């Protein structure tokens, strides 16, 4: 295969092409709307219009530009999503450890971990707001619950993935329980733990934005509703839509990146790359 052809068939490039196809489809739709609708920007603005609104210095509301509004409210939303996410992942990890340590705890909790996956927790957001009386707290609580169970189930799966022979080997060394956890179980479950994080990071963000829409104290969801009700420029809405989509995807990618940094299993790939470049 020639070099040019190789580059052309590389995966990132193919993804770029597909991405462009989506943009083109969007633009065709937008042009169509422009001809048929009185207010096309409410339904399908051009990509250039959305991008333009990002760099536009026009003040939309409260002496702020659309971008400033989005970034400021994103700060509030993401901060709480992050706190909830951290709580949820730490708690989920500890719960998985506890379930591994005690058969009784596992038997008691595990059915509920399964159950919680089947029920729409996010639908409970309004009631949690009613109980906590505080939008910030409820955002954290919902994000934490949504993070908790994917992390707990995946980490537990990781802890249970350790082969019988590894236990027997440790047994033959007369290793104590703490050593087995430190040297075998915890390193084994790290990739599974990150799988859980990758699933839950976008969920935590979704939850946080959704809770925003319930009460007006700033935050992405709140601005999104207001913009939809034409309380401010509709481009705030479009910016938030794309911003949250990008943040959702990036949060998952970020978890993968952190995994590569901390997980020893991943180090081997960097190692092998180094070897190849030496050769």
């Amino acid at each position, binding site marked *: 295969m020639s070099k040019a052809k190789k580059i052309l068939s590389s995966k990132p490039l193919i993804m770029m092409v597909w991405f462009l196809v989506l943009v083109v489809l969007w633009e065709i739709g937008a042009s169509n709307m422009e001809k048929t609708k009185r207010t096309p920007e409410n339904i399908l603005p051009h990509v250039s219009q959305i991008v333009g609104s990002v760099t536009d210095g026009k003040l939309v509301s409260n002496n702020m530009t659309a971008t400033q509004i989005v970034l400021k409210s994103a700060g509030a939303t993401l901060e709480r999503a992050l706190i909830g996410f951290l709580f949820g992942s730490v708690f989920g990890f500890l719960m998985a450890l506890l379930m591994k340590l005690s058969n009784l705890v596992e038997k008691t909790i595990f059915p509920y971990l399964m159950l919680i996956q089947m029920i729409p927790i996010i639908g409970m957001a309004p009631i949690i707001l009613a109980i906590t009386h505080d939008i910030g707290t409820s955002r954290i609580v919902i994000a934490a619950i949504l993070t908790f169970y994917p992390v707990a189930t995946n980490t537990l799966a990781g802890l249970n993935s350790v*082969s019988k*022979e590894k236990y027997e080997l440790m047994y033959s060394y*007369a*290793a104590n329980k703490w050593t087995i956890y430190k040297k075998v179980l915890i390193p084994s479950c790290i990739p599974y733990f990150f799988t859980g994080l990758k699933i839950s990071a976008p969920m935590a963000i979704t939850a946080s934005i959704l809770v925003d829409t319930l009460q007006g104290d700033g935050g992405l969801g709140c601005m999104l509703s207001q913009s939809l009700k034409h309380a401010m420029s509709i481009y705030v809405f479009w910016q938030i839509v794309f911003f949250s989509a990008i943040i959702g995807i990036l949060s998952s990618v970020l978890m993968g990146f952190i995994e590569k940094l901390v*997980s*020893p299993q991943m*180090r081997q790939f960097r*190692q092998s790359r180094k070897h190849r470049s030496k050769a």
Partner: protein
Amino acid sequence: MSEMLKEEWKKEIEIKIDDVCMSFKDNSGNDVQALNHINLAIHKGEFISLLGPSGCGKTTLLRTIADLLEPTTGKVRISGMTPKEIRLQQKFGIVFQSPVLFEWRTVKKNVELPLEIMYWSKEERSKQADKMLELVGLTKFADHYPKQLSGGMQQRVGIARAFGIKPNILLMDEPFSALDEFTKEKLHDDLLKMWRETNKTVIFVTHNIQEAVYLSDKVCVLSPHPGRLSAVVDIDLERPRNIRMKESQHFTDLVAKVRNSFEGGSL
């Protein structure tokens, strides 16, 4: 150590298996006799093979020695102590059929793992691991991860790890059965070399007759249903062994002798 002294030393019984029986319940609740009145004495420094078809209880017997299983009746004594006491003194080196390496540790760190558990100092660990890796010829791969190695190399790491803890007894459960014939032959000679240099007692479980004859001082032939010891064949091939011996008449005779000592028609 002089040859005579070595011979003298070999006469000392290290492991005594005394009328060991082992029965399990199978899925339908029936009693299955895995081991039936096994008696065996293993001398210090001996290379012993437990040979038999699947279901003959050879792995079960190895596991009772390793304190991974407790016999239903009868007892195992190692230098006068129970297997559990020996295990708690960390005197067992075990090699399984699969290499059982820890994929997040480098080759060297894998060899060091049991030494960490035994609280060796960092320098000693490193020195010992280097020494062991040199013995199995993997010095160049010390910083690689298990997934970057071939199956044979991975099993070598497992062997290096087992020898690294300076065990009294080395227990090997079909360690080469997943490897190709060429790799296997190479590892046979490596294992014999390490055994000669370290004077360990080795108990080697296998279903390969040639392998058992080539490696061992004694081949213990086990037959299934119920698992029982049907013969102990002394292998008087001279040491050190080499691959040429496999072509000799004596070797062929020994293989035939072992094969003929199986009982039961299930073969």
